[in-house]
């Protein structure tokens, strides 16, 4: 498959998925639509988890922290300042980024499992703070009664599940597009290089810690936007929305989807949420068992996640096609030594998350 054909195929898939997503409110009942809006919100948090875990190499269980900060900030602005959606989204992004900027010194010098533990602690402390700080967060009773938003000044109020879903879809699409643009820019190149070999980056004069800190704050901003969208989609907030189970589901979804792929992260998160919310309806009380089975299966069948394994399979097909067209070519299994390059034209561009 040539590069152009592959790009076309991806474009067709993206347009098809977007078309189905736009048509959802007319195809399903309001309850399912509102459930899908919340799935989109969690998908966006999954994007921030993938950005940190897969692209920057900082595995995280703490994105519920900036997610909660964005949600409470958006809710408080909605209750006391403005019902304009853009204002709430920008407030959520700023709150998420600020939260990440305050916690980044704890995270950015650690690596691997230690990052997981530190971010887990940050997430848990955030939930505890949200439960105790009653005057601001409403404690375990949560915040309710947020007025319906209008997307921008002059537009009508979003007073139905369908309208709120479409608004959520638009904001999530815009944020995901921005994330993809950044990852395809030199900033993405530097992050992937930092993940690949940090020592080599430092030996080339790169301030790796600064890059990772910037990625962490950007991830916080994305999670903060998702938090403000949760307020819009759900119109109610409580600390239970940011518990450890959400952190674990997000990481599980990103690992299943493929941590280096933003599309895979959204799809994986959606799959996990679907299993939790829908399949558990068919098998009451067995959702954790189904999720566990799903994870074990994925770990065995798709060790690099569904998106990563799909890319591997596509590369294998391209490699075989090339070998068939050039019978003299020793193929991909030739031991790599000092001879000519094992060049695979199918993989001649770097892996860009998408």
């Amino acid at each position, binding site marked *: 498959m040539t590069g152009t054909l592959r790009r076309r195929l991806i474009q067709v898939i993206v347009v098809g998925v977007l078309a189905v997503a736009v048509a959802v409110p007319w195809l399903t009942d309001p309850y399912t639509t509102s459930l899908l809006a919340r799935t989109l919100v969690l998908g966006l948090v999954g994007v921030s988890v993938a950005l940190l875990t897969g692209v920057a190499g900082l595995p995280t269980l703490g994105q519920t922290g900036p997610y909660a900060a964005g949600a409470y900030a958006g809710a408080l602005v909605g209750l006391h300042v403005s019902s304009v959606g853009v204002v709430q989204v920008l407030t959520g992004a700023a709150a998420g980024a600020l939260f990440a900027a305050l916690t980044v010194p704890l995270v950015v010098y650690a690596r691997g499992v230690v990052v997981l533990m530190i971010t887990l602690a940050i997430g848990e402390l955030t939930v505890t703070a949200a439960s105790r700080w009653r005057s601001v967060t409403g404690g375990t009773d949560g915040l309710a009664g947020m007025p319906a938003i209008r997307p921008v000044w002059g537009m009508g109020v979003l007073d139905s599940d369908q309208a709120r879903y479409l608004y959520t879809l638009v904001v999530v699409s815009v944020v995901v597009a921005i994330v993809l643009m950044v990852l395809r*820019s*030199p*900033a993405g*190149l*530097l992050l*992937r*290089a930092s*993940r*690949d*070999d940090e*020592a*080599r*980056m*430092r*030996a*080339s*004069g*790169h*301030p*790796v810690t600064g890059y990772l800190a910037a990625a962490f704050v950007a991830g916080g901003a994305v999670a903060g936007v998702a938090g403000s969208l949760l307020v819009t989609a759900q119109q109610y907030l409580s600390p239970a929305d940011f518990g450890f189970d959400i952190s674990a589901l997000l990481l599980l979804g990103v690992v299943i989807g493929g941590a280096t792929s933003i599309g895979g992260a959204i799809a994986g998160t959606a799959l996990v949420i679907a299993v939790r919310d829908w399949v558990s309806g068919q098998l009451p009380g067995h959702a954790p068992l189904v999720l566990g089975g799903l994870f074990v299966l994925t770990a065995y069948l798709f060790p690099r996640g569904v998106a990563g394994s799909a890319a591997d399979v596509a590369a294998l097909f391209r490699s075989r096609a090339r070998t068939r067209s050039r019978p003299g070519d020793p193929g991909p299994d030739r031991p*790599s*030594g*000092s*001879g*000519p*390059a*094992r*060049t*695979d034209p199918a*993989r*001649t*561009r*770097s*892996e860009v998350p998408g």
Partner: protein
Amino acid sequence: MSILLAAEAVTRRYGSLTAVDRVTLRITEGERHALIGPNGAGKTTLLDLIGGATRADAGRIGFAGRDVTRLGPARRARIGIGRIHQRPAVWPSLTARENVEVAAWRRAGGLRGVVTPGRFRSRLREPALALLDRVGLTDVATSIAAHLSHGQRRQLEIAMALAGQPRLLLLDEPAAGLSSVEVQRLVTLLSELSREVSVLLVEHRLDLVYALADTVTVLHDGQHVATGGPAEIRDSSAVRRAYAEAVR
């Protein structure tokens, strides 16, 4: 010739083991200096200390008239210390050309690459391709580095180190795992390097050392044994003793 690098009585300990024990090493501008010694002599640790990957427990390291003892590896790279690792260190998910571009990034302006990415990268592209041509990797410029052979990765890392325009190049066993053709290419490349670049070479192949080095320093058990010209070192009884002890 003025002194470019001056490592004075540098020491590094790992628990009860002293990997580098009060070693003093001076390299002048443009010099090709080789560091030899049996396995475990402390050669790579000394390179780590000079490159900043490891901090010295005692002693002082000066570079271009500046005390760099407390500087990290990124700051040392930015002032002109380039490094080639024992195992080729490249960024596997990037193409060969991208590897060289990212390695040249800081020298070419750093933050400008993020602010005006298109113009910045097009400015990096030609020099990167020229460097890949110099190390014989033109054909694989757009290949993912993970798909390159060991020898090609080694050549790529050399191109990456040169892209940072170092004043001192630290080479840790650059010929390890290379075919004879690739070794010959490496020798040619290093011989043709401008004398604006000084070289500190760690290498087990003594034929390469004697062919390339102006000065040779011998380490044994973390201690300095001798420093001199290649002929002097070849005939030194102290050096023979050090190697004989290591074999025993």
